[in-house]
């Protein structure tokens, strides 16, 4: 996907004024947040499992090269071809090459965020290959020619009326009003594609080192069609997805659907190892696994490696007040919300996504919701520090921070400034106690009033109280 994150502020402003989007986002929020809360409450050992899951992920990430090589060895032993892609460009080239070498004309695809990252569909289409997205949400977006706005519910920003209109255009049938009827129409339209595709492309939520296994997690069953019916199966996934064992998977899968939407388990979980075995009547004749770096090694080993634990559940965005208000498209790349505010600047460059680590209230909800205990606000803070050090923020902002830092380390000066500031602020607020506009932060006060200070500082009030109460 083309990076648009440099326009975060403009897009966020536009999205805040989009009444339709605001309505669609509000409908979804309760379902995600309440569903997760219920599932967590009935689980019993949620915190213990989060701690264990973080350990599982860290164990593999701390020895990432050895885990990957062990995975490669076992996958190869079972007949899969393992490819390594350093960049988005490499990943596309490898897959287009597999398609052209095998005379592939149609690809049926299940949801893969990595494929969105690398712009795979565009590249396959440029090579004359038809690509059909088969996850219902992704299919809707393919018809709408839009990128996903959520990593689990890609079309969360669309209303059923918008979907009905897209289906009329695409299927040429009468307009539908009910969601079950729309789902059936899409099922019928896609069934043919499953049966006639030459190649299936899927992602893999994790890859398992012990057995060389890739896997899919879906409710719709589309990934199972994609990995079973076409004669070639190609997996595209990130190098950070490796875990040790089936048991590690069992732990992580108790967290993933619960964190995503409050489901105890998804309808389908498939662990796929190698290709069709002798005598099998179904399954592909070739299996390819493309392991993609494309920026991930920049996070390895440093003070932000924890981000690679991410299992792509979407809980951080579901709980984020910023995401809830601006929606996924405002973030301008594949990954929105708190996890995207870290991954996007790292993968595509801090200079291209400077507003994202700042698009946070630091309320901390994302860190509480994260099933693998990624300290998301801390990581955003680290990116802010990098921005400051690399002089990537505006001059005025840097001066203001430097000024504040100068004062904050000199208590007497700070007290004097606070004392004057509190009185000036109180005077500016007038009888209502609200400041309508303030020079220097007028961008902020344009949309809201700032509550005025009470007139005296905390330290003054504290001293007074101590005197009165001894």
């Amino acid at each position: 996907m083309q990076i648009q994150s440099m326009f975060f502020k403009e897009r966020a402003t536009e999205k805040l004024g989009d009444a339709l989007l605001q309505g669609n986002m509000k409908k979804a929020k309760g379902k995600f947040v309440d569903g997760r809360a219920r599932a967590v409450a009935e689980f019993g050992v949620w915190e213990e499992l989060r701690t264990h899951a973080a350990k599982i992920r860290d164990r593999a990430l701390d020895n990432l090269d050895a885990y990957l090589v062990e995975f490669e060895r076992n996958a190869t032993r079972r007949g899969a071809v393992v490819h390594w892609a350093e960049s988005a460009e490499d990943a596309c080239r490898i897959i287009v090459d597999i398609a052209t070498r095998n005379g592939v004309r149609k690809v049926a695809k299940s949801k893969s965020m990595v494929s969105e990252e690398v712009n795979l569909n565009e590249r396959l289409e440029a090579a004359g290959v038809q690509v059909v997205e088969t996850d219902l949400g992704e299919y809707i977006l393919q018809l709408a020619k839009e990128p996903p706005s959520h990593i689990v519910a890609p079309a969360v920003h669309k209303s059923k009326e918008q979907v009905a209109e897209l289906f009329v255009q695409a299927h040429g049938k009468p307009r539908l009003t009910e969601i079950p009827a729309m789902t059936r129409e899409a099922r019928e339209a896609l069934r043919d594609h499953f049966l006639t595709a030459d190649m299936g492309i899927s992602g893999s939520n994790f890859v398992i080192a012990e057995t060389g296994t890739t896997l899919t997690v879906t409710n719709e069953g589309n990934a199972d069609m994609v990995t079973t019916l076409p004669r070639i199966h190609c997996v595209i996934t990130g190098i950070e997805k490796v875990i040790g064992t089936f048991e590690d998977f069992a732990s992580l899968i108790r967290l993933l659907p619960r964190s995503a939407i409050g489901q105890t388990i998804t309808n389908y979980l498939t662990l796929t190892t190698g290709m069709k075995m002798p005598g099998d009547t179904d399954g592909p004749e070739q299996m390819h696994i493309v392991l993609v770096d494309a920026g991930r090694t920049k996070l390895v080993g440093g003070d932000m490696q924890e981000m690679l634990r991410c299992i792509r559940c979407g809980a951080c965005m579901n709980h984020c007040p910023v995401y809830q208000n601006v929606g996924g498209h405002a973030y301008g790349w594949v990954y929105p919300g708190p996890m995207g505010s870290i991954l996007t600047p790292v993968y595509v460059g801090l200079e291209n996504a400077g507003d994202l680590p700042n698009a946070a209230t630091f309320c901390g909800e994302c860190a509480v919701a994260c099933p693998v205990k990624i300290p998301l606000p801390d990581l955003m803070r680290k990116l802010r520090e990098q921005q400051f050090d690399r002089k990537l923020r505006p001059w005025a902002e840097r001066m203001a921070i430097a000024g504040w830092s100068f004062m904050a380390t000199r208590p007497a000066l700070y007290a004097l400034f606070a004392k004057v500031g509190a009185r000036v602020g109180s005077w500016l607020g007038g009888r209502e106690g609200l400041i309508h506009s303030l020079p220097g932060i007028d961008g902020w006060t344009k949309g809201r009033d700032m509550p005025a200070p009470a007139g005296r500082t905390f330290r003054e009030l504290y001293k007074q109280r101590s005197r009165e109460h001894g």
Partner: protein
Amino acid sequence: MGARENILARIRKAQGRSGSEPTEAEIAMVREAIARHEVGPQPPFAHAPDRLAQFRKECERLGTTHATVGSDSQVPAEVARYLAAGGIAPALAGWSEFAGLDWAGAGIEFRNRPAGADDTTGLTGSFCAIAETGTVLLLSSPATPKVTALLPETHVCVVRASRLLDTMEDSFALLRTEVGEPPRAVFFVSGPSRTADIEQTIVIGAHGPYRVHVIIVA
């Protein structure tokens, strides 16, 4: 150097190791950690005193219907009852392990082959079932094609009560003892296919079956 070597070398450098390939000692350490097959914390309800009751409860939560019969020979009659009650045609594509049952006697046409696009019902067995989540586990093999559980609108699955386990971890232990290496597809099915991609409204019957009926053989 190729992409593989570059990626591995970058990881190793970032984590304070040299070269572009893990050492045999490092691989041995990984294998040792793997061989422990460490099991993480499991929720209390995963070890319910009445395993069958837990399995049934979770099935119902997922929209899976269930029935219990005394022996294999009673399976065709239960299938006939279920199909008739749902107004579903009395014909199915089934796994060959069930070909010897008296289907004609129950008025059902049994097609001893993998399900195709035109079969309305698929009949499968299962490797085992999992009470914690109301899940059935299917393993792919020449005699147990996955498509039979996937393409038809109705999936009927036979589960033996003796093969009902508490957790997914238990099923992996059983897989290692009885089969060894995993087959191509280790396929966990938990209820009929569904989607919530339009307005987060749950709709049963996305790409896979609309109905899953589990027949427990006591």
